[in-house]
């Protein structure tokens, strides 16, 4: 590499991630909508309507992936219930969209169709307020946030971490799915919420509405990325990564690790809710299958494939894996799960830094840690300060020579 190029790269280094996201967001929020709505259909540059929705949908996944990277890549908390937060945001927006159908449903009732079908006479209290867009938008952020906060508070305070935490989160999303499957819960049972007509008065079928929603998703990704970037670039962000690496030491630096985890965890859940709210108007349906435990596992795979601890990598992973999924499920429907599983195993074993590391843009911390994770050298937090498994040799107060020798021995233990 020439010196000029090297200098350019050094200067670009910290901004490359941001650059990738900026380009993505410009494509999603400006290029795609314009090529769809303004460029005539005869042109080679025209983007077909269905493609706009696909891009918008993938962008929402990218937001979830960025949120996931914040807690997993930076704070070391592997969540396997992020699809739940995403779905909750989606349901909140779906409830607004249901209410804005008005009397144009199948039964021409003021109530949503599924309630009429269940022979309900009035709106349950928890549907109040969802006639208003602002209320639904607020709830899309608040509900996942509050649930994450309460759940996280008890889990983190009891020092449930690592794989135990991940298992509990799987149980949480599974329980929520069962709850939402019930008709009596009041969210449309296994059909979920669908047949939406309009959002804020604009018909959802219109390509122009779709183009705007896609543009908004792009803007949403920019916003989510900017927020997460600001967090991880702050001293609080450095506390998060320190906690990921050696949690007990962070406590002995005077930080209340429960609060830091709760902060990252709750912010991440809120961003997922945000993504879900952007997603549902575009795909036109939300049902409990979004809460399947496997959906959350897939989110973790996107992030692992893209590369943990870079933010941009997570977004790229979400786009690529889902792009692959769209293509494979159409071309070879039976193969998808095998491909996904293989992908996960290969990435975990062969490239723990994911695509970002492959293209030389892995995070500094990762580069260090992967060099660090050679056999015999542990950075595992669990060993810190605990009684050493291999105690240093006995020491004699009387024989000084032996004691200095053992000091060297203790170092190796």
């Amino acid at each position: 590499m020439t010196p000029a190029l090297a200098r350019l790269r050094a200067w670009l280094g910290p901004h490359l991630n941001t650059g990738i996201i900026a380009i993505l967001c410009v494509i999603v929020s400006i290029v795609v909508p314009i090529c769809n709505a303004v460029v005539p259909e005869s042109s080679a540059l025209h983007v077909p309507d269905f493609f706009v929705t696909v891009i918008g949908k993938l962008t929402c996944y990218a937001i979830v992936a960025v949120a996931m990277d914040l807690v997993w890549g930076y704070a070391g908390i592997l969540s396997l219930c992020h699809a739940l937060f995403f779905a909750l945001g989606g349901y909140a927006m779906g409830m607004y969209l249901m209410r804005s159908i008005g009397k144009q449903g199948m039964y021409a009732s003021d109530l949503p169709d599924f309630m009429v079908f269940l022979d309900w006479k009035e709106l349950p209290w928890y549907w109040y307020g969802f006639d208003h867009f602002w209320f639904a938008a607020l709830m899309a952020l608040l509900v996942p946030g509050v649930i994450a906060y309460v759940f996280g508070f008890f889990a983190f305070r009891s020092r449930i971490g690592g794989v135990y935490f991940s298992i509990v989160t799987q149980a949480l999303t599974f329980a929520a799915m069962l709850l939402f499957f019930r008709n009596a819960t009041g969210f449309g049972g296994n059909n979920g919420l669908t047949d939406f007509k309009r959002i804020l008065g604009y018909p959802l079928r219109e390509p122009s509405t779709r183009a705007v929603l896609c543009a908004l998703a792009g803007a949403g990704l920019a916003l989510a990325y900017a927020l997460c970037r600001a967090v991880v670039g702050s001293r609080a962000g450095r506390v998060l990564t320190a906690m990921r690496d050696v949690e007990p030491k962070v406590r002995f630096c005077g930080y209340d690790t429960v609060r830091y985890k709760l902060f990252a965890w709750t912010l991440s859940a809120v961003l997922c809710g945000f993504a879900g709210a952007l997603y549902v108007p575009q795909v036109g349906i939300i049902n409990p299958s979004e809460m399947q435990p496997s959906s959350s596992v897939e989110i973790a795979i996107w992030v692992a494939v893209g590369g943990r601890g870079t933010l941009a990598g997570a977004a790229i992973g979400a786009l690529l894996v889902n792009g692959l999924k769209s293509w494979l499920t159409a071309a070879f429907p039976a193969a998808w799960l095998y491909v996904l599983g293989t992908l996960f195993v290969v990435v975990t074993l062969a490239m723990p830094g994911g695509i970002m590391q492959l293209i030389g843009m892995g995070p500094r911390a990762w580069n260090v840690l992967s060099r660090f994770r050679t056999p015999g050298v542990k950075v595992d937090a669990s060993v810190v300060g605990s009684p050493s498994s291999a105690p240093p040799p006995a020491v004699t107060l009387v024989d000084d020579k032996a004691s200095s020798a053992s000091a060297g021995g203790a170092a190796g233990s």
Partner: protein
Amino acid sequence: MSALLKVDDVTVSFDGFRALDHLTLTLEAGELRCLVGPNGAGKTTLQDVITGKTRPTSGKVHFDGRDITRLPEHVIVGLGVGRKFQRPTVFPGHTVFENLELSLHGSKAVTRNLFARLTAEERQAIDGTLDLIGLSDLRAKAAGLLSHGQKQWLEIGMLLVQQPKLLLVDEPVAGMTQAEIERTAEILASLAGKHTVVVVEHDMDFVRSIARTVTVLHEGRVLAEGPMKDVQADPQVIEVYLGA
């Protein structure tokens, strides 16, 4: 009476095994105390109890006139107790500079640290400490890549910028060269007076070079306490060590 730390009749049992057995210990402000004892004597466990990592089965710990027996770790740190672990423990993915930054004395709240900028004084404190621990040239290096001895020093540096009233230092010179050991002794000795320091160490040359008062632990109890010379001559101490 200016006892900074009072460990009062503390017992820690792990499934019936008493790592600390009715242990009582008092530290005056400004003291430099060495804690010695054979493996498994309970030295690390004593530090765990003082810092809130392990809860005593019975007994009380008072620091600076406050009962800290049941307080969580970060609160105890906030009151002014700093600790260096037996195994050098630094943040491997952060640079040397960032390690010190994270240890700085000051607010540890999330909201504050989201917007925190280093003040000129803080930067000075870090630079000064980097000079003191001899890591100025390595400030931008990831701490995980430091040598064992350098990590030990970095961890001591992290303690210093934290400005604790009481420093608990577990085996600070393990894995250091002779020159490094001497320098560490200087640093620790210079701290006494301003700070209260408890050093756990197996290296007897080192203990002799810094200690004023030595406490010998054995099987969770205080076996002897006093100036190094007296302790070394104590027949019970000799017996325990030769028997070990």
